[in-house]
């Protein structure tokens, strides 16, 4: 047997023969720390294990050495492969950067027949056409959208209530279809509507032009109607019957819904989720209120703290996991999004959770008045008198001028989570993003002080929760893993 060398010959020897790969860590609980590598592979450690890892006081056979190698947290000092692996994976994760600005939002009107106290876009009442987009602006916006690099773009019609200016939507869709053929582009259309004004003619038009519907559903009828008042107090009935009619014409998969959490929602996550199951929606996006528009003016945004919202989220997630254990495949979409990033290196183009930030580079917003904004939230701020995210005006701009404008370059370049204070040392950074609009709105600074940031607290709360469930193993962990690969 002397021909073979003993295992110890292949041990790395003194710690000077080893090195740490780029890593970050975050306390998850008492004597529980999550350490993450450059691309967010995570390893849970005790305080003592972390101390030994960082001191490179680890040895083959002790279990930490093995786990740290497998998670690309350490290697030999002369190894060359692991930084290459990390670089390659980082490149995969950020591959969306090669296809900038796939989403184009057209605010075809700011008018709406609903009068929601939490309206984040500051809707205008029905009677004045001054808040409708003109055909001229629409066509100028379309040219910009079609000159963005991706071969497939999404055009989303927003409001107010976009169906109040459906004629303009028709003009845009038909012009887009014509121009797309000549430019060899594929276009997906979505209308974000409350469905109250839905007619059969509109539905048949959507069917003939492959337009999907995205609507709002806040939960059971009493909660929804309280959040979303309209003349007649029948918003829920119109939304639910609209969903059914739209599915019948467009097909089940072409209709989706979003919920917004208000203070009245906080005690009722199960009922809200059960309403989504009842309406046969394929999952739910548990969304907090954002600090824009009437939500700020009416102080609805301030009515609950981040920690109360996180408690709501966890209660909701636990209920959803229970439903999944019973055999429904029903993801919480925000968790799915984060899990995809935690468990795979698929490039995630979700515009609100990127660094470099998705403003402009992920989406452009063409406002009814001709102004072009870097994000949907940017135009919401503008209605409050703050034009920080206005990139130009449709009368005299083009795609290149908008995305290379000094303002956008400053905002994106100045807020990179990879080098922002607190973010750059955060274990969750690979799964998070920069949100310059939120931090500008709440702290008057696009980078923001993260310990004071509701965005940051929410991210850490949800990521820590998902990590804890994954680490506990069992059926819940398997459910989360399925969401990541679905």
């Amino acid at each position, binding site marked *: *047997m002397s*021909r*073979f*060398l003993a*295992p110890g*010959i*292949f*041990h*790395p020897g003194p710690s000077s023969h080893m090195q740490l790969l780029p890593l970050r860590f975050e306390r998850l609980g008492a004597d529980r720390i999550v350490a993450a590598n450059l691309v967010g*592979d995570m390893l849970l450690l005790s305080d003592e294990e972390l101390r030994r890892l960082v001191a490179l006081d680890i040895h*083959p056979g002790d279990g930490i*050495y*093995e*786990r740290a*190698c*497998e998670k*690309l947290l350490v*290697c*030999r000092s*002369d*190894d*060359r*492969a*692991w930084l*290459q*692996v990390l670089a*390659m*994976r980082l490149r995969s994760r950020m591959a969306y950067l090669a296809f900038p600005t796939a989403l184009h939002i057209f605010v075809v009107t700011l008018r709406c027949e609903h009068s929601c106290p939490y309206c984040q876009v500051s809707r205008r009442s029905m009677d004045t056409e001054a808040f409708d987009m003109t055909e001229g602006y629409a066509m100028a916006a379309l040219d910009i959208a079609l000159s963005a690099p991706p071969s497939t773009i999404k055009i989303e019609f927003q409001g107010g209530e976009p169906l109040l200016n459906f004629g303009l939507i028709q003009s845009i869709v038909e012009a887009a279809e014509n121009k797309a053929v000549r430019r060899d582009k594929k276009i997906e259309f979505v209308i974000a509507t409350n469905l109250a004004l839905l007619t059969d003619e509109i539905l048949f038009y959507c069917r003939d032009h492959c337009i999907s519907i995205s609507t709002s559903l806040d939960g059971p009828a009493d909660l929804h109607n309280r959040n979303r008042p309209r003349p007649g107090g029948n918003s829920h009935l119109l939304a639910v019957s609209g969903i059914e009619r739209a599915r019948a014409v467009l097909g089940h998969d072409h209709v989706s819904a979003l919920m917004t959490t208000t203070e009245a929602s906080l005690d009722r996550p199960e009922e809200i989720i059960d309403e989504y199951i009842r309406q046969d929606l394929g999952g739910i996006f548990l969304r907090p209120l954002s600090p824009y528009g009437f939500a700020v003016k009416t102080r609805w945004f301030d009515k609950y703290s981040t920690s109360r919202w996180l408690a709501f989220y966890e209660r909701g997630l636990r209920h959803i996991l229970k439903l999944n254990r019973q055999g429904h495949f029903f993801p919480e979409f925000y968790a799915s999004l984060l899990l995809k990033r935690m468990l795979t*290196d698929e490039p995630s183009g979700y515009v609100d959770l990127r660094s470099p930030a998705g403003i402009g580079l992920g989406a452009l917003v063409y406002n009814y008045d001709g102004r072009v904004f870097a994000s949907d939230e940017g135009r919401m701020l503008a209605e409050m008198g703050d034009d920080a995210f206005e990139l130009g005006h449709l009368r005299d701009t083009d795609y290149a001028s908008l995305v290379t404008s000094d303002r956008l370059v400053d905002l994106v370049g100045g807020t990179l989570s990879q080098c922002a204070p607190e973010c750059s040392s955060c274990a969750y950074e690979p799964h998070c993003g920069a949100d310059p609009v939120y931090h500008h709105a709440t702290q008057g600074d696009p980078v923001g002080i993260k310990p004071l940031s509701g965005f940051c607290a929410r991210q850490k709360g949800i990521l820590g929760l998902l990590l804890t469930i994954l680490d506990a193993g069992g059926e819940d962990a398997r459910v989360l*893993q399925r969401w990541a*690969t679905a």
Partner: protein
Amino acid sequence: MTPLPLTGRVETRGLSAISTRTLLRLANPEAPPKSVYDAALLRTPNDYSVALSAGYGQAVSVMNPSDVVGTFDRVALFGPKFRWLGNGDLLAIEPALGRYRVLWRTASRHNAFLVTDRCDHLCLMCSQPPKDVDDSWIIDEIGDCLSLLPAHTQTVGFTGGEPFLDWQRFIPLVDKAQQMLPSASAHVLTNGRAFSRAEVVTAWSALDRSRASVGIPIYSAVDAIHNHIVQSQNALDETVLGILRLKDRGNRVEVRIVLHQLTVPRLVETCAWLARNLPFLDHVALMGMEDTGFALANHNVLWADPVDYAQTLASAVAILAGTRIRLSVYNLPLCVLPDSVRPFAVQSISDWKNAHHDLCAPCDERGQCAGFFTSGKTKLSRGLSPIVRSGAGS
């Protein structure tokens, strides 16, 4: 069932007059020889006169010695135990030593040329223990063989030793195989370390990449474990770097994990690591250990009964099955595998490994089973038991 004796001793006459090594292609005695390498395959006494009148000057006999009548100037006298030899098979004869090697069997779908016995690894479970000898002539011999293979040949395997030790001669050999055999894919078993050097990857990438693949073992993501198993420092780092370089240039790469006491304890973690870090692999093969060669010498530190690691294997398979990587389980009999693993089990790569035990006689899955190795003093799993489908037989 015993494995086919692909190497051994044989009585020859007249062959030594030609060279120290003679390459022969077995041919139907009724058809005239097409090449100077062709030797008539004599199965019956009548074949002598048939072969002579067809113009053969050399022959290989698989008859009973008592049936041998007449004579050839150059002949190798195998007995009736070699009736499995067939037309088109390639033999190398070393007359001075009285040795033969079967290099190619037309009846097999799993032919592989041994490129060298030399290796820069010394794997604890190596089934083909390396020898430190100058065997550079083998590449020339394989070059001669390639011109004798049927044009419709589908796959040509290359194994070792480490074929890329002499990459400057080996890569042109694979190129020749691709040129001469337009339908054939080349598959090479290698430790992959040569590809950590850019010039090797550049030369390899100049081949028809759609018809070339390499199978590379990775036994663990932990350097101390992998390097101990292959008995070489820096092995894991260079192998992974090689795989990155190969995939960067669009080459096909398979990773192989042999299952034994040193790989099984972290098999789930190893597979999770592969899924996260090398998701672009074309194929992962989880392989039962061939209990021969060094594996016998290291039996005590290596042998693991498949029934004892069945659940670990199931977890590892579940992880890889959720990726885009194609997954196979080799060399393990179906009856020791959990149900979830069985769909990934494929029949072994060499037909002489596909053997079965007497207790397999009533098994309904024999036709689909990989069987187990018979090339050594194989230790059998205590989990072996015939799979009998209930209600079968109607």
